């Protein structure tokens, strides 16, 4: 009896507030937009019995999905979201790996402090960390003034409200997600392996490529997915730092819903976004499983 209560409470909660809403999105993505409250048709009318259900089902179609393939705004937004997420992931890796490597090589008594310094920004508001860059990147911002004072540039660079600013924002806010898994694998590594490689004649760089890098690959893959997956659906960063030409699907969905009030199309955009995300999520799960097996 008690066992049933423990299971039932979170189970029912998630059914009602996770699964059911998701089914509703699926259903609305198959409906048509209408000038009504709520602004779509058909709505299920159970008072008419089977006839109501039949009318409801015959009103559903894939029109919105066909619409998404015809208007090139949508597929360009999907492609550019994936591309922006991909490029940001590579930059985050290039910056994050040396940090994780330096942390793992630091004296053991320093490591908890360094770890805390990486985690601390994660507890700080995401919105504020994105906001901080507006004052730095704007045309009369700090970066431009420093560069102009140093005579490196003579006209301010237009970084804010461009895709480059979106890269900066994603790399900055997701950096801890890259550093932590890589650090976790590097920290466990046995230094004796490197000494052995060097004793056997490998150069320092050679030892890194032959020993350290392969051993840290699990952490690298995990870190990349932890940045790549959420970056695809990102909304805050493109809407605060991006320009009008920065297309990202999270922003498109938001505008479709709040500005155009086209709920069926917004729902269809959401469904396709999920289908795209399934691939990296499955790959990520598989990588995690492999890591766990390796650790026994």
């Amino acid at each position, binding site marked *: 009896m008690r066992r049933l209560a423990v299971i039932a409470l979170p189970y029912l909660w998630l059914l009602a*507030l*996770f699964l059911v809403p998701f089914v509703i999105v699926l259903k609305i993505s198959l409906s048509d937009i209408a000038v009504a409250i709520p602004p779509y048709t058909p709505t299920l009318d159970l008072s008419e019995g089977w006839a109501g259900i039949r009318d409801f089902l015959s009103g559903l179609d894939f029109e919105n999905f066909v619409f998404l393939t015809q208007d090139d705004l949508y597929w360009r937004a999907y492609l550019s979201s994936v591309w922006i997420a991909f490029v940001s992931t590579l930059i985050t890796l290039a910056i994050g790996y040396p940090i994780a490597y330096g942390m793992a*090589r630091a004296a053991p008594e320093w490591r908890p402090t360094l770890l805390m310094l990486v985690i601390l920004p994660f507890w700080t508001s995401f919105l504020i960390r994105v906001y901080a860059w507006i004052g730095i990147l704007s045309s009369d911002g700090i970066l431009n003034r420093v560069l102009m004072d140093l005579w490196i540039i003579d006209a301010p660079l237009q970084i804010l409200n461009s895709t480059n600013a979106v890269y900066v924002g994603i790399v900055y806010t997701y950096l801890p997600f890259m550093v932590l898994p890589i650090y976790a694998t590097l920290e466990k590594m046995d*230094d004796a392996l490197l000494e052995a490689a060097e004793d056997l004649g490998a150069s320092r760089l050679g030892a890194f490529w032959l020993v350290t890098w392969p051993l840290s690959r699990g952490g690298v893959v995990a870190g990349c997915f932890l940045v790549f997956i959420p970056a695809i659906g990102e909304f805050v960063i493109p809407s605060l730092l991006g320009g009008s030409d920065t297309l990202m699907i999270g922003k498109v969905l938001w505008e479709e819903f709040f500005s155009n009030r086209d709920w069926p199309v917004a729902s269809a955009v959401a469904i396709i976004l999920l289908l795209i995300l399934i691939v990296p999520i499955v790959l990520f799960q598989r990588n995690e499983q492999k890591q766990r097996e390796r650790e026994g």
Partner: protein
Amino acid sequence: MNRFSWFNATSLTLGFAFLYLPMVILVIYSFNASQLVTVWGGFSTRWYGELLRDEAFLDAAWVTVRVAVLSSTLATVLGTLAALTLVRMGRFRGRTLFSGMIYAPLVMPEVITGLSLLLLFIGIGLDRGIFTVVLAHTTFSMCYVSVVVSSRLATFDRALEEAALDLGCTPAQAFRLVTLPIIAPAVISGWLLAFTLSLDDLVIASFTTGPSATTLPIKIFSAVRLGVSPQINALSTILIGMVAIGVIAASLATKRRAVLAERDTRAAERAEG
């Protein structure tokens, strides 16, 4: 052998400068007397004063705190139960679906979670406001709590519980007297995580709230869209300060507990020897 090199030192210095400089600049400019946020006009605390007199911000802060306390508490209860279900209940019908529903919200884009919950609330005719935001925040943060708590439960020595049962505890007593104290640190960090996630959330709150309940992130977002404002810098500084104090206090407490535990172990060893 010490392998810490100049390369390591440089990458750590640059890395942490990248992580912290933007926030340092933000904090410095919150004390700027000038209205122009990018020009230094002397030291002043005037923006803090204006912030504290701004009713709209204070209201939003109060809404946010209430939502965060309610949702993180609910999420901690539900998330702990979910963790017990995942780790302790063995096989039951629908377990795969259950673990799927626990892990899916962790990777679900916020725009989709927000959209789907809003469509649910409209579908069942629920008036949107603080209550619906609490429901939404509880739903996604309980999944984080359950991940944190279940990793603690997985490494837990079941023999301790069995001993309590052998010594005459009822299962409920064993849970309260043995299990709960051992998983307590994980439950507390789960609560803190849920609290922070709720304080921080813009997207899901924007979808699920109504005109009566504007949270602080929604207020900040609409102010920031118009550009940089020194008031937002002041507000950010206060929030960053609270987080820094909280995290440092927590890490000092952990360190102190570790030192005390070590002293106890030593004392016990000496007593035995």
